[in-house]
C-alpha cells in the first residue's frame, strides 16, 4: 500500500469563469503534518475542497491512497479515511451537540475505533456539558471543538483543518492549538491552514506556500524557521 494518503497532480480548479488553481502539485505522506500557507484568496481553501471532490470544475488528477479518485463523489473520498474541518466551521445548527457527533461516527479504514464517543467527550469536556444544546447555541470555540470532535469520530487517517482558530478569542485559540497538538501526537496525519504562521512552523514538518493558485514555495519547517526572509517574501509577514 502506498504511503501517500492524498495527492494532487497538476490540479486546476475554476469557479465559473475564474481560473483559481493553476496546476498545483501537492502530496500528503502518512504521518506528516503539513502547514498550508498563503495570503488571503490565494487558493488554500480551493485546493483542499478540490481534493475532496467539492469543487466540480477541475482538471488534473486527485489520488487518494494511490488510487485515482478525481471524479469520485465526496463521500467516497471521505470514506478513505479523510476528515475535513472546513473554514467557518460546519456544524449542523439544527442538530443537538450529541446528534452532531453521533451521526458521523464510524470505523476507520482498517476497521479501528480509536476515537469513540466517550473519548471525544473526555477530550472535549466542554462539549460533554452541552450535549443536549442545539448546535446553534454554541459559542464559536465550542462550535470549532464540535467540528473537530465530529471529524475525529470518523476515525480518519488524515485530518484537514482549514482556519480552525479563525475568529476565536486568544484563550480559546490556545486551547484549539493544544487540541491540534494532541491529535497530532496520536499519529493522525494533518494538513493545517492558519493565519498564525509561527504556530504552524512550530507544529508542522513541512510547509507549502500557495501564491495565486500555484505552489510558490515548499520547505521543511525547520529550514523555514531558520530563514525568516523566505516566508516574508511569499507571505508579506
Amino acid at each position, binding site marked *: 500500500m502506498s504511503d501517500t494518503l492524498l495527492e494532487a497532480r497538476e490540479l486546476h480548479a475554476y469557479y465559473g469563469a475564474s481560473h483559481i488553481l493553476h496546476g498545483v502539485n501537492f502530496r500528503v505522506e502518512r504521518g506528516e503534518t503539513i502547514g498550508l500557507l498563503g495570503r488571503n484568496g490565494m487558493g488554500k481553501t480551493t485546493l483542499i475542497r478540490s481534493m475532496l471532490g*467539492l469543487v466540480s470544475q477541475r482538471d488534473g488528477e486527485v489520488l487518494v491512497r494511490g488510487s485515482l479518485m478525481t471524479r469520485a463523489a465526496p463521500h467516497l473520498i*471521505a470514506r478513505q479515511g479523510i476528515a475535513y474541518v472546513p473554514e467557518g466551521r460546519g456544524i449542523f445548527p439544527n442538530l443537538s451537540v450529541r446528534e452532531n457527533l453521533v451521526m458521523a461516527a464510524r470505523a476507520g479504514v482498517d476497521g479501528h475505533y480509536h476515537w469513540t464517543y466517550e473519548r471525544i467527550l473526555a477530550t472535549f469536556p466542554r462539549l460533554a456539558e452541552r450535549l443536549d444544546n442545539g448546535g446553534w447555541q454554541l459559542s464559536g470555540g465550542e462550535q470549532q471543538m464540535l467540528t473537530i470532535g465530529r471529524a475525529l469520530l470518523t476515525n480518519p487517517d488524515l485530518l484537514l483543518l482549514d482556519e480552525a482558530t479563525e475568529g476565536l478569542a486568544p484563550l480559546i485559540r490556545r486551547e484549539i492549538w493544544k487540541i491540534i497538538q494532541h491529535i497530532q501526537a496520536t499519529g493522525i496525519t494533518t494538513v493545517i491552514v492558519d493565519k498564525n504562521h509561527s504556530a504552524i512552523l512550530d507544529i508542522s514538518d513541512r510547509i507549502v506556500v500557495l501564491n495565486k493558485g500555484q505552489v510558490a514555495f515548499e520547505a521543511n519547517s525547520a529550514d523555514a524557521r531558520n530563514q525568516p526572509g523566505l516566508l516574508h517574501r511569499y507571505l508579506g509577514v
Partner: protein
Amino acid sequence: MDLVTFLIQLLNGLQYGLLLFLVASGLTLIFGIMGIINLAHGSFYMIGAYLAFSLSTLTGNLFTAILLGIVLSAVLGIILEWLLISRLYHRDHLEQVLLTYGLILIFEALRSILVGDDVHSIAIPAILNHSIPLTDTLSYPVYRIFISMVCLILAGLMYGVIQRTRLGMMIRAGASNREMVQSLGINIQLVYRLVFAMGFTLAAFAGMLAAPISSVYPGMGDQVLIICFVVVVIGGIGSVWGALVAALLIGLVDTFSKVFFPELAGITVYLLMAMVLLWRPEGLFRMT
C-alpha cells in the same frame, strides 16, 4: 348543532387532516430538505388510489392490494428519483416546476391508457364496514376511525425516524449543510433517494386509504396537491410537525366551514393561509 353532530364533524375533520398530513409531510420534506418543488406529489396520491383499485380488483382483497401497492410505490419512488428528480438538485425552481408538471401530465395520460377515465368505487373491507351507533339515528363509520388510527401511527413512526435514528439525523443535517454531510462520508444522494421514496409512498398510501371513501377518479391528485401546498406553507416549509398541525387545522376548518358557512366553504382554507402568512410569513414552524 347538537353535541353528537359536532363530534361527528370533529372526527371527520381530524380524519381528513390526518390524511392530508400523510401527503403533505412528504411534500414538505422534499421541498425543505431536498429543495425540490414537486408538483407531481398529488399524482402520487392518485397513483396510490388507482393502485388500490386495480390491485384489489386483481386480488379481491384491499389489504393485500395495499401491501402490494406500498411495495410498488416505494420502488416507483426510487426509480423516479434516480431517473429524473436527481437531475434537479442543482437546477432552479422553474426547471423543477416544468419537469414535475410534465410528470403530472404523463401520469394522467398513463392512468387514462391503463385504467380508463371512468370513476370507480372500492368497497370497504367487510371487517371494517361497520358503524358505531351514537344515537338512535346517528352513527360513525369504523373505517374512518381506522384511517385516523393508521395515520396517527405513521405520524408517530415518522417522528421516531426523524428525531431518533441516525438516518433522521442525516436527513436533518442535509437540510442545513449538504456538503458537510458528504464530507463526513455520508452518501447524501442515497439519503435523498430514501426521503423521496418515503414521500412518494406516504402520498400513495394516503390515496389507497382514501379510495374506499372518496372513490377513484381522474384528476383526483390535483385538488390534494393544492391543499397540500397550503398545508406546507402554513406549517412552515420543511417542518413535519408544522405539516401535522397545519393539516389538522385545515381538516377542521374545511369540515366545519362546510357545516357553518357552506357558501364560503371553497375559500376558507385559503383565507386561513392568508391570515397565517400575515401573522407569520415563514409559517407556523421552522425547518425540522
